[in-house]
């Protein structure tokens, strides 16, 4: 493909360009609180906190879609599990993140392991639908949890603490915790993709038959990736529960899973940076348009269509093509 040819002819430049974007992204995230002090601090902080939380889930989804061609349509379930872990433990008086975070990660990883064993037997569209099925099962299970609010959801009265310190309580400290988690998730995903494990996993996306002929058991590699992505979804849910002080079955709805998918595709799949850009673009455009008109979806819908038709590869794909056009 053209992209591959381009990158081999100028490997050094593309390496630099590959790192300039994430550095810029994280610099912006780090500096937002400084500028936020000038106007509507609480609003800006909570909006960008939300962006970073969804970016973590989008990163996890990109790990599946972009690098493994495993299009999961049930990823919101993991976020919901993470958020419910915080909510349920908190309602029993257990607030410390030293307990609730491992529980959130563990429960979502376990759910990923059990469902992954079944889901990964299928391919393509059937995989999309079976992940949807498990997502829906989680959703209906959550809405039947009568002691924890059922359909109405559960208010999380006390945010998590870390070893007794209420670091999740302040807007600003929660913001930086989310930033650290996002950075950690990003670096983890990058390391994974670049590792020996990642090479086999990516190879299985291109041609599972060849990879298994060489002697790798594709299924196992995909299962490990699925569990990691599930745990990252749980992390994102853990943070979301703390940020919104609330959890409800709607966190696990298929619409939410669809939104996560759209974020990743909108930004550009298989780049990791695209997942963060996509989550930010989706949530910020949504926020901006809904401020202009209550009928913002009439504008946002066609925007998605335009991106799909004219910018395959999402926003990052579009940016890359523009750069190429400018350079001639």
């Amino acid at each position: 493909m053209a992209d591959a040819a381009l990158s081999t002819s100028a490997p050094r430049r593309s390496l630099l360009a590959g790192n300039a974007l994430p550095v810029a992204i994280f610099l912006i995230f780090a500096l937002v609180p400084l500028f936020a002090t000038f106007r509507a601090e609480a609003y800006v902080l909570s909006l960008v906190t939300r962006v970073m939380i969804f970016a973590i889930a989008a990163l996890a989804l990109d790990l599946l879609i972009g690098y493994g061609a495993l299009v999961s349509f049930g990823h919101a379930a993991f976020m919901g599990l993470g958020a419910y872990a915080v909510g349920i433990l908190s309602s029993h008086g257990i607030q410390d993140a030293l307990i609730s975070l491992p529980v959130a990660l563990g429960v979502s990883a376990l759910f990923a392991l059990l469902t992954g064993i079944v889901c990964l037997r299928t391919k393509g569209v059937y995989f999309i639908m079976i992940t949807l099925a498990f997502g829906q099962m989680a959703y209906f299970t959550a809405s039947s949890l009568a002691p924890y609010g059922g359909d109405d959801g559960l208010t999380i009265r006390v945010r998590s603490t870390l070893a007794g310190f209420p670091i999740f309580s302040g807007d600003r400290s929660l913001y930086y915790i989310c930033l650290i988690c996002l950075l950690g998730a990003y670096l983890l995903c990058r390391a994974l993709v670049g590792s020996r494990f990642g090479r086999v996993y990516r190879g299985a996306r291109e041609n599972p038959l060849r990879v298994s002929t060489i002697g790798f058991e594709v299924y196992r590699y995909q299962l490990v990736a699925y569990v990691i992505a599930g745990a990252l979804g749980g992390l994102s849910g853990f943070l979301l529960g703390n940020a919104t002080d609330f959890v409800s079955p709607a966190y696990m709805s298929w619409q939410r899973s669809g939104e996560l998918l759209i974020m990743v595709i909108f930004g550009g799949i298989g780049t990791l940076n695209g997942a963060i850009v996509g989550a930010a673009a989706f949530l910020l455009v949504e926020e901006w348009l809904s401020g202009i008109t209550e009928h913002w979806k009439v504008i946002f819908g066609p925007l998605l269509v335009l991106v799909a038709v004219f910018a395959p590869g999402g926003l990052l794909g579009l940016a890359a093509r523009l750069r190429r056009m400018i350079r001639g």
Partner: protein
Amino acid sequence: MSTSLLIVQTLNGLQLGVLLFLIAAGLTLVFGVMDFINLAHGVQYMLGAYLAVMFYAFTGNFLFALILALGAALLFGLLLEFAVFRHLYDRDHLDQVIATFGIILFLNQGVKILWGASPLSLPMPEIFSGSVVLMPGILYPVWRLVIIGSGLGVALVLYLLVSHTRVGMLVRAGATNAAMVSALGVDIRRLFMIVFGFGTMLAGFAGIMIAPILSVEPGMGDTILILAFVVIVIGGIGSIRGAFIAALLIGLVDTLGRSFMVDIMRLFLAPSPARTVGPAIASMLIYLLMAVVLYVRPAGLFPAKGR
């Protein structure tokens, strides 16, 4: 669990199944023949209902409204095909997902602007508005029987079209291997348009037929879309026969599950947990079914392609 309730709920299940079949038939063909994921298929169903309400307001006659709405739904579907979908046929599935998702957002909000957010209703034709005595003591609304009858009629026509006409043969061939059909000199783009238009009309028809017993509101197509996807995946993508059987299966399992799951749960559980667990299990029953089917047969019950 009385017998009369069982009969009534079985009929309700059939009615839901037939409705799902009308939507899933178009979806499975578009998917099977064109390899195109059309999330906007659900809004076509919603649009059918809205158009029928609008034309009913103009004409005051259900039959005229039905015909005009079908025509308008077809035109709108072809317009969408021409303006958007055509550019996405050879693209990645994910591009199709994002584009058709955009169309859902646009149309759901669009009908809200045009017709308001509050639910509308479509009166059913006078002669079908009553109930009929099925057995002593069992009354059943005639309109639901009409829906079942017309759905089965459409299924029969589809069967004849697909298995006994030249176009049907091409459609089947296209679902198996579109590239080969094209190589043999068939204008595959035109075939796509026919299939797409027909599928759109069927979804619109489903929306019109159900409008008198459901409220017509924005977003009504979203839930049914997911159910239709469940149907085509269980049936095997591209298979009309599979879609028919899976649609009836899903309709019956879902309806009967919702009516009897609490009673079934009572056999194992105390009444109070049974009342909370029952509905949850009933809601997830079809997804459970799908997961089991896909686990046993990863390409659905009647795969059209040998993959």
